[in-house]
């Protein structure tokens, strides 16, 4: 039964999911450390609205998703830069606005349920070659962005105030980082859908945080957890005949819960159990 793992459409799905996993692990580490997860969720919903709107108007959905998520990224970044308005209110309203927009564009499409469903929970098994090309170029853009601006991103993540005081254009890097998060949301939209996008951006990075004392290790572990969620999720979904995206999301969340218990940063009573203590000591450094 496992030979189905190597059927062409599965291979394509795995490639696409691995792409998504790796990009979100990289950008997710910055998202988690800067406390931007909620912003990620709001942007993911904007990308859903964009995809549905474009679909209703017979444009390429992923381009629509890109346009609207970028717009929302800019709006939220602007309001975070210019203070005066409380961030949770901005996010709450923009979340509601993008959801309303998504629901509205949904009613404009005839293929009501199927299309909605694919962008809500993704359709990793249905990715085409052209999807893979588009997603790879988005992913590449995110990776190049992070590599190019890595030391600047690290500085603003750790200490925005000193970065600005010492002459870094923090506003530029803040906008850039949020736009890369938006780009990642679009990649996620096709693979796991808007509901699960945030799980994939946040859970692997948050799990990695529990075992990391430096950023490079956190990003590396985060990639590892994301790839494990994809492969294990895909396998479980085939074995138990479940939809693949939600299964991957469940695995990613499960890894996070286990990470909290095994964390080398927290003192949880589970470390008194001998097996867990051994694992903890092995992962500690």
């Amino acid at each position, binding site marked *: 039964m496992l030979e189905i793992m190597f059927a062409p459409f599965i291979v394509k799905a795995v490639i696409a999911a691995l792409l998504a996993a790796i990009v979100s692990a990289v950008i997710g580490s910055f998202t988690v*450390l800067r406390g931007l997860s909620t912003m990620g969720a709001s942007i993911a919903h904007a990308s859903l609205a964009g995809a549905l709107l474009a679909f209703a108007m017979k444009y390429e959905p992923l381009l629509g998703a890109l346009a609207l998520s970028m717009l929302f990224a800019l709006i939220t970044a602007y309001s975070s830069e210019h203070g005066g308005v409380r961030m949770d209110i901005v996010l709450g309203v923009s979340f509601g606005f993008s959801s309303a927009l998504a629901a509205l564009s949904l009613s404009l499409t005839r293929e009501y349920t199927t299309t909605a469903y694919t962008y809500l929970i993704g359709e990793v098994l249905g990715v085409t070659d052209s999807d893979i090309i588009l997603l790879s170029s988005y992913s590449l853009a995110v990776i190049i962005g992070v*590599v*190019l*601006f890595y*030391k*600047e991103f*690290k*500085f603003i*993540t*750790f*200490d925005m*105030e*000193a*970065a*600005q*005081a*010492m*002459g*870094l254009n923090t506003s530029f890097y803040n906008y850039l980082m949020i736009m890369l998060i938006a780009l990642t949301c679009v990649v996620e939209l096709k693979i796991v859908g808007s509901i699960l996008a945030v799980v994939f951006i946040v859970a692997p990075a948050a799990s990695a*945080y529990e075992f*990391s*004392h*430096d*950023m490079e*290790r*956190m990003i590396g572990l985060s990639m590892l957890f994301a790839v494990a969620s994809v492969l294990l999720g895909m396998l479980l979904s085939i074995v138990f005949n479940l939809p693949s995206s939600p299964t991957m999301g469940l695995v990613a969340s499960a890894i996070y819960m286990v990470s909290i218990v095994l964390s080398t*940063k927290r003192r949880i009573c589970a470390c008194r159990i001998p097996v867990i203590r051994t694992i903890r000591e092995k992962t500690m450094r």
Partner: protein
Amino acid sequence: MRPVILLENVTVAYNGEPALMKISFKVEEPSFLVVAGPNGAGKTTLLKTLLGLLKPIEGKIVVLGINVLKNPLRVRKLVGYVPQRERIDPSMPMLVKDVVLMGRTTKTGLGRLFTKEDIEAAKKALELVGLEEHWDEAFSHLSGGQQQRVLIARALASNPKLLLLDEPLSGVDALSQNVILGVLREMADRGTGVVMVTHDLNPILELADYILLLNKRVVGFGRPNKILSREVLSEAYNRSVDIVRVGETCFVLGGDSHA
């Protein structure tokens, strides 16, 4: 000689509410300036104003001979800044070397890795604060005082012409406090401008070249021995303050609002 810092009639307000009023003073080399005053006196506001991060509603600011209002970025690139430590989340996954190298970020081109020169400058800065053996350690594993010294090393790593430090002595152990003051005095003697904010004057009475007592306006400014009068200090802190001389050393009693 060109003044390190020159302020003339500077007024800064938040939403129309003035935080600094008509501030004027001039600092020349060697310039270890200590800014003291109670909480809410506008000390942090003053540092941000010196960097052009806050725009005054009136007044003139010249730092290192540069007009801050016209050219804030030029000033900032010459500055090493040490924020209040509470602003930083110590659980961030960063190594000591990562933090110190941040000081080199604007010295290295975009998309470039840190060079040998950057790493040397960072190591030298860490050595100055006596923590060179912690280079590869996690920032979160250090004590509060050590973390503060790493933040100072980060500022030093950029080879600044001016150091701005926001309450670098608060919540810091005695050893770290001595190391920090020693480094700052040495930097000032070597021609680097130093502006240090504190709410506790005691540790620096002997070391400072200038003291600025601030409480929204300038309550006192000058050489330490000149402004240390009971009246001036009491006004600065909004409460009665006593000065005790023990031999060569002065102590201010009741001034530290956190004591």
